[in-house]
């Protein structure tokens, strides 16, 4: 059970679901490191990842976590440098 001001978020990291606890007042990006750690995706820094919703829309990870309560969050590795 999260503490007051804490909440649980459903995060899908590269297709693998996990639940991450975060402060409702912290930016969404603050949970990236924890989500990666919990799913064993340790090879790339948090900046290499981006959040999308179930419909595939890019999410602003500077917004507060409180705005994403109840939203299934898809954390995906960016394409990186091609060619």
């Amino acid at each position, binding site marked *: 059970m999260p503490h007051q001001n804490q909440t649980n978020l459903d995060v*899908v990291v590269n*297709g693998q679901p996990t639940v991450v606890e975060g402060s409702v007042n912290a930016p969404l990006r603050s949970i990236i490191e924890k989500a990666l750690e919990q799913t064993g*995706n340790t*090879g790339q820094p948090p900046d290499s990842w981006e959040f999308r919703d*179930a*419909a595939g829309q890019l999410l602003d990870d500077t917004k507060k976590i409180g705005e994403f309560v109840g939203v299934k969050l898809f954390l995906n*590795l960016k*394409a*990186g440098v091609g060619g």
Partner: protein
Amino acid sequence: MSVAADQAKSARQRPDQYVEPSVSRTKFDREVGEYRALEEEYLSRGWVMTHASFPLVRVMMCAAQLKPPAVIVEVELDFTNYDAEPPSVTLVEPFTHRPYKADELPTILKRTVGAPAGFLPPGLPVGSMVNIQAQQPLMQPPNDPDGLPFLCIAGVREYHEHPAHSGDLWELHRESGAGRLARVLEVIHKYGVEPIADYQVQLALSVTGFIQSSFPE
């Protein structure tokens, strides 16, 4: 199986499995299982898994945002030797599974890239502010004329086998999830399907005569 699909199957060269099959199969099952767990969400994006039997996964990608929706491409991933090797990724025709040649691709996955930091075109004074962007296709043509176009991102077997990427080993990316099924599909959707805004229609008009208001006596 249709003749075209049969030809497509026989024409493909599949690698031999040298990794203990149960290892690759277990990891393959994990990829497919995780996809199945989120299948409703993926379906809402227009993704339809049409085949999942080791070592192949095929996912049809549709532009669900269009009215009516359109099938854009089918993605085939070959998990042979996964994850000692990354999956092979091929864009194929949705109803025959025949791989697209470079000049047949329905999408080349264009992405916008900025100029390298500090880049200044000749002629501009030092300190000038420039905003240069270019479009780069993530689907690259093959080296040899008989080859297939390949998805040029880390985590894809064809990328790591390409001579130009000999310094960027798969082992450097394996722990990042770069070769995961969902990640590869996300990239193809992001650059190949999501940007499609509408149908492009071309009408060819030709004058065949005149409409007369009357026919005088």
